[in-house]
C-alpha cells in the first residue's frame, strides 16, 4: 500500500515540479527579470527544478512498476497505449516522459548546439516540445490519476494549467525580440 501511495504522490509532485520548470523556461527565454543577474538565477532555478522533476518522475515510474495493483507493467509503461489500465491516458504519460527526456538532453547540449549553424533552430524546436510534454502530463494525470476526483487535487491541476498559460502569455507579450528592441533593456548609461 505504501508503494501505491508513493506512486500517486510522486506523480502529483512530478507534475508540480515540471509545471514550475516549464513556466520558468517560458519566462527565462524571453521576458523574466529585467536584470541579467536575476535572469541567470532564474535559469539555474529552471535547471534545478527540471532536474528534480525528472528525478521525481523516475520515482513515479519505479513505484508504478513495483506495484502489482497498478496493472501497468514494464511493457505498458514503456510502450505507449499498451497498458492494461486506461491505455490511452497511461500512454500519454509515457509519451510525456519520453518528451521530457529528449528536452532534458537538449538542455544539457545547449552550449554545444548554439555553436553549429542550424543547431539553434533545432534546439528551440526540440526544447519547445516541453510544452507538449507538459500538456500530455497534465491530461495523463487528470484522466488516469486515482486522486483526480479529490477537491484539492483538482485545484492543483487547475493551478498548474494557469501557471503555464500565464507564463506563456507573459513570454508572448514581453518576450518578443521586437518588443525588446523598441525599449532596449539594460542600458545603464
Amino acid at each position: 500500500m505504501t508503494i501505491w501511495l508513493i506512486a500517486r504522490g510522486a506523480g502529483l509532485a512530478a507534475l508540480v515540479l515540471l509545471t514550475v520548470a516549464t513556466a520558468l523556461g517560458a519566462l527565462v527565454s524571453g521576458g523574466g527579470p529585467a536584470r541579467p543577474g536575476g535572469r541567470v538565477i532564474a535559469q539555474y532555478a529552471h535547471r534545478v527544478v527540471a532536474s528534480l522533476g525528472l528525478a521525481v518522475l523516475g520515482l513515479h515510474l519505479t513505484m508504478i512498476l513495483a506495484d502489482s495493483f497498478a496493472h501497468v507493467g514494464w511493457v505498458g509503461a514503456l510502450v505507449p497505449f499498451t497498458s492494461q489500465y486506461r491505455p490511452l491516458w497511461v500512454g500519454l504519460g509515457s509519451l510525456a516522459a519520453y518528451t521530457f527526456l529528449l528536452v532534458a538532453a537538449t538542455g544539457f547540449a545547449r552550449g554545444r548546439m548554439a555553436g553549429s549553424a542550424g543547431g539553434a533552430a533545432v534546439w528551440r524546436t526540440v526544447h519547445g516540445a516541453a510544452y507538449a510534454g507538459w500538456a500530455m502530463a497534465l491530461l495523463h494525470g487528470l484522466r488516469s490519476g486515482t486522486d483526480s476526483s479529490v477537491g484539492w487535487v483538482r485545484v492543483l491541476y487547475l493551478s498548474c494549467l494557469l501557471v503555464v498559460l500565464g507564463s506563456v502569455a507573459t513570454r508572448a507579450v514581453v518576450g518578443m525580440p521586437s518588443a525588446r528592441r523598441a525599449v532596449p533593456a539594460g542600458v545603464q548609461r
Partner: protein
Amino acid sequence: MKLEIDWTRCDGHGLCAALLPERITRDEWGFPVLHNTAVNPEAPTAVRRAVAACPALALRLTNEPSESRR
C-alpha cells in the same frame, strides 16, 4: 578555441557580460563587446557557462584555432 557572437541572433540580453565581465562588456545600447576572444582548448567553466546561458543562443565557442588577435 574562439569565442564568437552571432550578431543575427544577439538581442543584447546582457547575460554573457554579467557572467564573463573580464571578457565581455556592454555598449551603450546594451549589446556585448568582446575584449578577448581566444579561449584555451580546455575552456574555463565560466566561458562554457556563459555560452550555455545566452537566451538567444548567440554566444558560441568555435573550434577554429585562435590566432590570438588583440
